[in-house]
């Protein structure tokens, strides 16, 4: 793998995973300090998945994300400052303060949004793939989703349609074993998501989602095939979130401290750092320099977000409709809008 990926790319993967981790840690601190309310679904423990997949994407490729989407956003190129500002509800956030943790948007770089409803990332990404096909481009469209989505109709309908129509889509399941707090083992009798691919007739692979190089390899193959017109793929990444479903939530009763400790011991960033050192791809000094640069970037991002202005309340009803030419009168339905 290291022969084909190259040293520079290997270090970029490390930098990206670390950026997600440090950004999430900053958000955890800000939440604990009472700097924002609402959801904060961290991606800590799952960084290898978004990093390994998005490393293959161009800016014009589309990513459709989930309620646990901070990592997807950062890996697709949303600046940490805009992510943190969004969670602080600031005008400079990537959704201008409209979205928060669950509703991140930056379509100008192909980050088409994260959803608070589990499942639609799959069908929406199939639609992004349809556009790519109709427009005769080689763009691909990626859906991230958790194990919680695979027993939802979106999974069945979206993957079936994308396969039937041979669309350039990559379906990335982050199987972190729990849908909020419901164990996947209790949610289905077939706990192999990858095996379900056979039901639809697309390739399905299962891999260690905490191994960034494994994710990178499988995603590379799927993206290349989709770009070449070979149709979609399903990739199941076995991983784990080591923090609560959302910051501030009671994280007990459904999983054990032992289980969390076991997965923490398999931390994807630490494992990758060890592998880089063991394979002599980088020195400690190289990696420490990346650590320091990321740390500085996140500190700067926090300062930017904290000092950013709040959005203007007067803008809250903007963009319900486009400023299209289809209207002869304003579209307001009535009542207070009349």
């Amino acid at each position: 793998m290291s022969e084909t990926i190259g040293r520079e790319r290997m270090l970029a993967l490390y930098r990206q995973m670390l950026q997600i981790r440090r950004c999430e840690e900053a958000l955890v601190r800000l939440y604990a300090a009472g700097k924002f309310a609402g959801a904060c679904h961290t991606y800590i423990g799952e960084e290898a998945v978004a990093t390994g997949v998005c490393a293959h994407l161009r800016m014009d490729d589309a990513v459709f994300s989930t309620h646990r989407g901070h990592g997807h956003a950062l890996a697709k190129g949303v600046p940490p400052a805009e992510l943190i500002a969004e969670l602080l509800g600031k005008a400079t956030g990537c959704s201008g303060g409209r979205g928060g943790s669950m509703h991140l948007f930056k379509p100008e770089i192909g980050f088409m949004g994260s959803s608070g409803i589990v499942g639609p990332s799959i069908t929406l990404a199939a639609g992004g793939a349809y556009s790519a096909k109709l427009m005769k481009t080689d763009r691909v469209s990626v859906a991230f989703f958790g194990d919680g989505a695979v027993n939802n109709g979106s999974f069945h309908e979206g993957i079936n349609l994308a396969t039937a129509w041979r669309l350039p889509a990559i379906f990335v399941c982050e199987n972190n074993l729990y849908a909020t707090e419901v164990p996947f083992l209790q949610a289905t009798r077939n706990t192999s998501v990858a095996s379900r691919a056979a039901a639809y007739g697309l390739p399905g692979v299962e891999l260690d989602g905490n191994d960034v190089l494994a994710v990178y390899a499988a995603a590379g193959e799927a993206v290349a095939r989709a770009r070449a017109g070979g149709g979609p793929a399903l990739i199941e990444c076995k991983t784990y979130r080591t923090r609560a479903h959302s910051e501030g939530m009671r994280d007990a009763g459904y999983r054990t401290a032992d289980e969390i400790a076991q997965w923490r011991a398999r931390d994807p960033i630490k494992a990758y750092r060890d592998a880089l050192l063991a394979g002599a791809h980088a020195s400690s000094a190289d990696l420490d320099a990346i650590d320091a640069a990321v740390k500085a970037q996140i500190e700067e991002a926090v300062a930017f977000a904290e000092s950013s202005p709040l959005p203007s309340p007067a803008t809250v009803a903007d963009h319900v409709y486009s400023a299209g030419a289809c209207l002869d009168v304003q579209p307001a339905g009535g009542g207070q809008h009349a």
Partner: protein
Amino acid sequence: MREMTYVEAAREGLAEEMERDPLVWVVGEGAGPRGGNFNTTVGLYDRFGPERLVDAPISERGFTALCTGAAATGTRPIVDFMFIDFITDGFGDLFNQTSKLQWMSGGRLKMPIVLRGCMGVYGSNGAHHSGNYYPFFMHVPGFHVVVPTTPADAKGLLKTAIRCDDPVLFLEHKGLLNIKGPVPDGEHLVPFGKAAIARAGKDVTILAVALMVRRALEAAEALAGEGISAEVIDPRTLAPLDMDTVLASLHKTGRLLVVDEDFAPCGVASEIATQVMERAFDDLDAPVKRLNGLFAPAPYSAALFAPMVPDTAAIVRAVRDLLAE
């Protein structure tokens, strides 16, 4: 001007827009070579090919959300549901994704998607093929709701819907599909939010929705024989709703009847009556009256079917009652 049926006129509009913009595409069960259950796409498959006239599996939630994703990424899908009842499997994604993505993205995503289908309590289609559903969409920020009643409007409003960057629910009443009427030659677009005065009058205003416009016109003709001059308004779009035209008419007549075959609670008449009270209470010589379909699912048997929706005689009676207030 040519005489065309409603379906022919809408199909001509669709073909013109597909010719004009290669990013317009249609998906639906039977929308391909067959040309649609209601002949909405007859002949278009041969002209535009399988990537733009896409036969779909019975997977309404899937292809509704897929088209939402496609609209967000640069193409202009038209979902042809055949019977509009089949849209209901897609409600979750329509209300949480399709209607909200423009707002959620701060206007950076567009949502040029048309959701079309045939509606209405008409014929023995039974409980799962007779619904209307437009009040749901009127209630939600982000949708336009279009209910053409003439061939010319079917064409002109469909063309506007296809060019619109917002989600449009385009509803064709089954009782209107085969009516004939004049359609202008050349480019014909009808803007949203502009009601039509289907018949001018001075004693009473009747606002009717979809097929009820035709019944209201018949009623107005009958009432004219009694010396009653009824003005009939066809709103053409329910969202946006052209209240200015309604209020101008009411200012003249002082009395308003809303005829809607759909259910009364939280419906079109509820909204209009409230806006009339808010904006034109002093113009009212009598309370706003509404005439709706019965509050029950649509039956199969003709014996059960007859009383379901207002007929011409019921509209005539309602107008007499309103004038007696």
